């Protein structure tokens, strides 16, 4: 029997990890850590979760421990954000290229400098090429459910890729809202214990994390590329099975009033939630606007994005991260790349917003749509990337 609690997204994640009955949790417990692992340490201490909880001296070690445990066949979890994720950077690649089904939650927060503890996606976006599956969620409930889906996806024998579940720091991580808790019995029905083919085992010794020189290194990497191409279809299947068990599904993306939209807002995570209200208000004014929220961000489900974004006349991308020196934010450059060889494509604009925890309001999102509408009327994009709301710069 599921039951409903009012939880922060951090705690919603912790409850999901508990229901997934993980074996090993390793985490650095101090800032920029969140209350995810605090809650998990309580569960372990109270005997509600039979796991090894290993408090380590850095995020670098946290992921190292989890990698080791996962190589032994354990179901593992860690969590971090911001500088902590940056410190994990080299291990991110090791986990993915060793094909370990690690699951990690990330409360996305800004990277230094300036010192700032607040929300943006700079931490994960700086690691977007690390070979992990990356899913951005939009509510505490979705975070809870996506953790459960993440294990099912990561542990599939045709995938075996680590998964990062990303949610807006503070805006989601510290926000309390009602969450339907999936109980352990139901979750383990959906997520049965499985035996991985290649784990460290004294009875059946293998070598993991080998050295490969120019003759084979490329093929090792390509195995990961190949596994990632299977992720969109696999996640759809996982999502469908999840729906059969729990009655809820999320898909690879979410769209809202997008069918006939001339202007399509494209954004991740929490902003997409607020954006629905902006869409409703503008629809009342007769503006044909809709919303597309990618959920699976890596690997990019290229065909899906292409199909869903193509019919709009202009895309108004809202990026909560900066790609310094690039033509726009990370999400924008990804979307541009999806249309690289297409002659039939919408106009595209990028609005960088919500940096360092700056609030993104309904009014601002409406303003962004109106600015895009003006560009659409002109029929030509003069300035593709708008640093929206930044002081000292005026845009028409």
């Amino acid at each position, binding site marked *: 029997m599921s039951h*409903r609690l*009012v939880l922060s997204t951090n705690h919603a994640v912790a409850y999901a990890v508990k229901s997934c009955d993980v074996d090993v949790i390793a985490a650095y417990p101090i800032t920029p850590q969140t209350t995810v692992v605090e809650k998990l340490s309580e569960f372990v201490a109270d005997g509600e979760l039979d796991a090894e909880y290993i408090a380590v001296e850095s995020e670098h070690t946290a992921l190292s421990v989890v990698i080791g445990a996962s190589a032994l066949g354990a179901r593992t979890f860690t969590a971090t954000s911001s500088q902590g994720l940056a410190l994990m950077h080299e291990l991110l690649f090791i986990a993915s290229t060793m094909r370990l089904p690690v699951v990690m939650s990330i409360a996305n927060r800004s990277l230094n400098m300036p010192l700032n*503890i607040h929300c943006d996606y700079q931490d994960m976006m700086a690691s977007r090429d690390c070979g992990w599956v990356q899913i951005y969620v939009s509510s505490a409930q979705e975070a809870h459910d996506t953790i459960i889906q993440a294990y099912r996806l990561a542990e599939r024998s045709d995938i075996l890729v680590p998964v990062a579940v990303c949610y*807006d720091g*503070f*805006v*989601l991580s*510290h*926000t*309390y*809202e*009602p969450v339907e808790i999936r109980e352990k019995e139901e979750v383990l029905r959906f997520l049965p214990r499985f035996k991985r083919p290649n784990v460290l085992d004294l009875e059946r010794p293998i070598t993991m994390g080998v050295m490969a020189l120019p003759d084979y290194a490329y093929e090792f990497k390509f195995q990961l590329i190949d596994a990632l191409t299977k992720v969109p279809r696999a996640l759809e299947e996982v999502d469908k099975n999840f729906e059969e068990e729990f009655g809820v599904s999320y898909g690879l993306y979410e769209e809202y009033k997008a069918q006939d939209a001339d202007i399509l807002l494209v954004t991740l995570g*929490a*902003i997409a*939630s*607020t954006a*629905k*209200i902006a869409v409703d208000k503008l629809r009342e004014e007769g503006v044909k606007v809709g919303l597309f929220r990618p959920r699976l961000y890596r690997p990019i489900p290229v065909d899906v994005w292409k199909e869903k974004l193509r019919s709009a006349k202009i895309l108004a991308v809202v990026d909560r991260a900066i790609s310094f020196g690039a033509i726009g934010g990370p999400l924008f450059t990804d979307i541009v790349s999806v249309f690289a060889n297409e002659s039939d494509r919408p106009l595209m604009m990028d609005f960088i917003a919500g940096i360092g925890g700056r*609030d*993104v*309001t*309904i009014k601002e999102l409406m303003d962004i749509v109106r600015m895009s509408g003006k560009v659409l009327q002109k029929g030509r994009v003069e300035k593709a990337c708008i640093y929206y709301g930044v002081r000292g710069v005026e845009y028409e």
Partner: protein
Amino acid sequence: MTAHIEARKKLKAYLSIGVLLKGLKIEGCMLIEVRWHGRGGQGAVTAAEILASAAALEGKWVQAFPSFGAERRGAPVQAYTRISEKLILDRSFIYEPDIVVVLDESLLNADRSNVLMGLKPNGKLVVNSSREPHVLANMLRFNGDVAAVDATSIAIEVLGVPIVNTAILGAVARIIDTPRKESIIEVMKKKFPPTVAEKNLKAFTIAYDRTIIGRL
């Protein structure tokens, strides 16, 4: 002064046709937004969460979230609660609250512009203060209902520490229709260990009884 009298007359007229109170009743409007102003260590964030949890017990959709600076004891802190009949999609801060709760009276001077910012004209103000509501209303030039209770004294008397969140919730329970007092009590019983819960419920109940509601 005449302006105030005029305003009061207008408000009374609104009251008589039920518009003013309806604005704060969940049935009449889709959404109630509460903004909490306190100082680090007073428990504003917990209060925001308790109120939300209590409304959730009554089947409402809720949201409670803090606005942290760098966490430190004594610094001004804001927290927010949203209560709605519908799923809450707005994830931005609250700029036009229906209710403002002030856990620390010194913020009325130190942070006055922020405390009153955007408070709806027919909104309500809850203040931890030993002063009379009409005195506070006059001081703040606020035309709406003001609920006042000396939560600090109650907290020190009952809990032995100036953590005023559960006491101020007593005053909030007096002026808000949803959630009901009983739901807040139920949440507090679940949230705290028994001995802590008992003391906090005492602080809550005393504050509920001692709260004075008034206006200009």
